[in-house]
């Protein structure tokens, strides 16, 4: 199992750096992954997006639609791509501790 070390913490991850055990996720882990991705200190919008993705995952076992993220957080679509330069999947879902979604992402 590959590992990802960020600031002294070691996480088991898949080959794309998504957490192998989504249950080890908490807000501190989210901030660490954001640091690793170059996002830096997450602002309110980052947190709103990450929390809606996380709660959808815990409830339904998958990432929400981007429409749901926009509607629930009030963040504009184009701004989401700016907040997470790797996009909603490789960026936001990874910070939210989800497994990598299937498909062309």
């Amino acid at each position, binding site marked *: 199992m590959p590992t990802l070390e960020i600031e002294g913490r070691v996480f088991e991850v898949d080959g794309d750096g998504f957490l192998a055990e989504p249950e080890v996720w908490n807000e501190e882990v989210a901030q660490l992954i954001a640091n690793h991705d170059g996002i830096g200190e997450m602002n309110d919008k980052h947190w709103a997006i990450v929390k809606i993705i996380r709660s959808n995952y815990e409830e339904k076992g998958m990432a929400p639609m*981007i429409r749901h993220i926009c509607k629930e957080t009030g963040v504009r679509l184009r701004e989401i791509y700016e907040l997470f330069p790797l996009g909603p999947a490789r960026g936001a879902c990874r910070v939210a501790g989800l497994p990598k979604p299937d498909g062309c992402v």
Partner: protein
Amino acid sequence: MDGEVFGLQNKDNMEKLTQEKIQKGLDVLSAKHDGKLITHLNSCVHCGLCANSCVYYNAIPKAKFIPATKVDLVASIYRRYQTFGGKVFPKLVGAKDLNDEMADEMVDLLFGACTMCGRCVSHCSIGVDISYVIKKGREMLSNMGMVPDTLQSTINSALESGNNMSISKTDFVETLEWLEEDLQFEVDDDNAKIYLDQKGKEILYTLNPREPKFFPLSISAMAKVFYAANESWTISTKMYDVTNYAYYSGNYEEAAIITQRLYDEVENLEAKKCVLAECGHGSRAFRWEGPNYIKKEYPFDVLTSVELLAKYLKEGRVVVDPEKIQEKVTLHDPCNLARSGGIWKEQRYILNTCVKDFVEMTPHGLDNICCGGGGGQLAMSEYNERRLAIGKLKAEQIRATGAKIVATPCHNCVDQLQQLNVTFKLGIKIMTLGEIVADSLILEKKSEEKPNINKLEIKAL
């Protein structure tokens, strides 16, 4: 990137091969009537010209990454089981057993070290169809139950849910209704629509599921272009997925199921044409491989969005102003569309018409370098380190153009380029061709008559 994150191999999860599984793999090579297979397995003269054409060998210069080495994996098994010399004196003729070790090596190199971009084929001194041999090797592994789980998972999603991201119908419909509201606002017309499940339209338009799920701007863009062109079109809520990951896995029974579903939906909705979203492998799988998967010709036309957009521009059905896109734009050619599909002039026509400053990469077109995300690589996390390593070649090509926008008609390439953009700090924006056309559109009031020629100077074709 942290080196220790990567380099995971799949072998730990693999069951050991049984004789029955081995035989299923060997069956792929035993088709005596397959003249192409036999010819291409016997033709490599080991000249080595393919080595430098390969993104893997260029990025990681180890002999195992040379395309000829990958071909020889399959050819050595063929010799062992299908030739007299190989059966009697295997070592003398370089014939090898298909066993656990060989199968693991095949998974590592045929799945994990090939994007099936086909550049080696065009550089081969004698024209061996190397990608075809790789596909045969993947088909063997598929028959043996050795498709990497990460790749198979995307296929399973498609087979079970009807789309490769398991999007529910409710979520899909709500997303398209949301996009329709946005479209009406954008074009300032409440009659602008995204038509769902309508029968008898000219076009059934498909999507890559990543569009409704995460990246819907490309749907909005095409809807805007269809609106401007006054097109008769619809999207199916039942079967809209343009992708077919079974093309990558080599499981052609599964590929046929997915192809048949789209075929059935075009028939069900009585559309005259099926227009494929900007998707390299999806276009190849449905348009060019599909009739072979389902063993019948299509009674309807199939064309790619790229061809349709170029046609609209040539016929003056949409009018654009290249002054709207001032940044320098370059083009990434998806291997499956350009090198394998022969569609390479259309995207240049579109860019020469729609943007002010279009610059080519070197090399480009039929000799373009793969972005590194093809062949199913984006799905197979275990080979992520290699995928980013080979992507460096594309990143350098992009950087050398000085472009700020990279246009590419393939969502798979878009995702790889997005990751290269962050990894190699390119500072670029990646756009589909639909987005380029939509951003340069001049929308006219629906009541006014449209001009019947494109008023802009045609620089290409």
